């Protein structure tokens, strides 16, 4: 396993473009979260300190940071798609197989890399959240800190799921730019199907079915936190209440998609004449 990871890391880290993109995809969310936690003096008129709003309190901070950090996953998605696209355009995939890498190992080396970077990203976000939380939070009891830490795990699963989808599209289409376009098409397609079901049945059923679509199921792992922040401000408004928790079946759906995408990528490569 380490051999395969090592192999892929060499391919990625010696490429300047992917190195920059990896750097951006990890460092950018890190800094955005860090900056937002600072006290910002806006032209001396007033000071903006998001921490005062109570959003950096445990446990809500887990929800908030993972949700925002996940928006930066697109940078690494480009890396994933291009690490497949480059292998095809340089024909190095052919050479790798001739040199004695099996097709299974080839897919696994890509998948391990995805898991590795998702893990690094999760650990980084975990650390920064912990630091900001400990600094701002009014409660620092261990019980409260680790409450809702499952958002971190959801973040990890969400990244792996999304990047596996990119891996599959990369294998399917072989060209990075088109694969990214397909990602966008899938996004639109999911909404069109959602609209069709709403039209034919009703919004409630449509929403439930939508929860099983690949992109939506990944998105739903970490629901948007805005409503929840509003809830904390106006606790008496019960119509704001919604289900933001991470459920086991939501993990299940995403893990299933992940397994399917990795398996399909392998099948695709196995069937293909290079």
């Amino acid at each position, binding site marked *: 396993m380490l*051999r395969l990871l*090592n*192999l892929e890391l*060499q*391919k990625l880290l*010696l*490429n*300047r473009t992917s190195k920059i993109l990896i750097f951006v995809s990890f460092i950018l969310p890190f800094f955005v979260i860090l900056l937002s936690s600072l006290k910002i003096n806006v032209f001396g008129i007033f000071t903006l300190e998001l921490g005062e709003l109570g959003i950096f309190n445990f446990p809500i901070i887990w929800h908030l940071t993972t949700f925002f950090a996940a928006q930066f996953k697109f940078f690494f998605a480009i890396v994933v798609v291009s690490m497949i696209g*480059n292998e095809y355009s*340089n*024909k*190095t995939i*052919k*050479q*790798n*197989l*001739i*040199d*004695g*890498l*099996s*097709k299974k*190992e080839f897919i696994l080396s890509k998948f391990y890399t995805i898991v590795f970077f998702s893990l690094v990203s999760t650990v980084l976000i975990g650390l920064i959240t912990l630091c900001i939380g400990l600094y701002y939070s009014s409660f620092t009891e261990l019980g409260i800190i680790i409450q809702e830490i499952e958002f971190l795990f959801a973040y990890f699963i969400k990244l792996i799921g999304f990047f596996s989808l990119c891996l599959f599209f990369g294998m399917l289409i072989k060209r990075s730019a088109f694969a990214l376009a397909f990602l966008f098409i899938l996004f639109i397609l999911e909404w069109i199907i959602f609209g069709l079901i709403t039209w034919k049945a009703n919004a409630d059923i449509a929403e439930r079915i939508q929860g099983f679509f690949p992109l939506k199921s990944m998105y739903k792992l970490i629901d948007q936190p805005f409503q929840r922040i509003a809830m904390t401000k106006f606790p008496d408004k019960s119509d704001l209440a919604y289900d933001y928790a991470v459920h086991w079946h939501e993990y299940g759906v995403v893990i299933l998609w992940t397994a399917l995408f990795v398996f399909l990528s392998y099948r695709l490569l*196995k*069937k*293909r*004449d*290079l």
Partner: protein
Amino acid sequence: MDSILKLNNLTKKFGYLTAVKDLSFTINKGNVYGILGPNGSGKSTTLGIVLNVVNKTSGDFQWFDGKVSTHEALKKVGAIIERPNFYPYMTGSQNLKLVCKIKGVPYTKINKKLELVGLLERKDSKFATYSLGMKQRLAIASALLNDPEILILDEPTNGLDPQGIHQIREIIKQIAAKGTTILLASHLLDEVEKVCSHVVVLRKGEKLYSGRVDEMISSHGFFQLKCNNQEALLSFLKTNEAFGTIKVQDEFITAFLNEPLNSEELNRQLFKKGIVLTHLVQRKESLEEQFLKLTDKN
């Protein structure tokens, strides 16, 4: 003799087109094999199948008597297919390092092999900056990293300039001299004739011949003769059983042999009959003539 690669009734179809048809042959250790065939005769497809990049339609193949899986076997094989495929953003030695990781070979081999192909000074330049000849030499270095049991070369001199072709040939000869088994696919006949001991001839995916190069040129050769008394010579040749077809072209007579006969013996016999030759050349048919004869049928 140890068999390295065995093909049994291998077939590959691309839709309605049959690229390789019922192909069987065996590669034994220590020989230099050539796969000959015109463009599109299935050479590269055949190599692609045994190298795990093209899926076969039917039949099977075995590396090293089938004791190991294909991808494990390929770690003991060195192969170059058509064009050198490397990561353009990595340097020569970084690319080889990656191959070492795949094959499980220590990095110490890298400089040794780069020296063999004369790329040591350029090992830290990016692959993208290499000329085609250098790329091809890097590919050979990469194929040799694991000191392979068999080296597979598919059109190794394609697209190179004369110097490049010469360099690659010299390297191949050096490797062959060390006793490494080589499988060389080419449509360049003199290339095969110069380095190979065995040959497999393909046409439209079918095997036409497989065996030793010198047995393929199985005829006993022919004489080119010239003499002032042409008629006497002709009647002698026609009555002699050693000769088959006889062609007359201007003053030259070409006589094909049915059985071995050396020029000294022929000259002596003719002299006894009072026929004095002004021109006597004994030749064997070249591989090229033989190859064209084989592939031109039908």
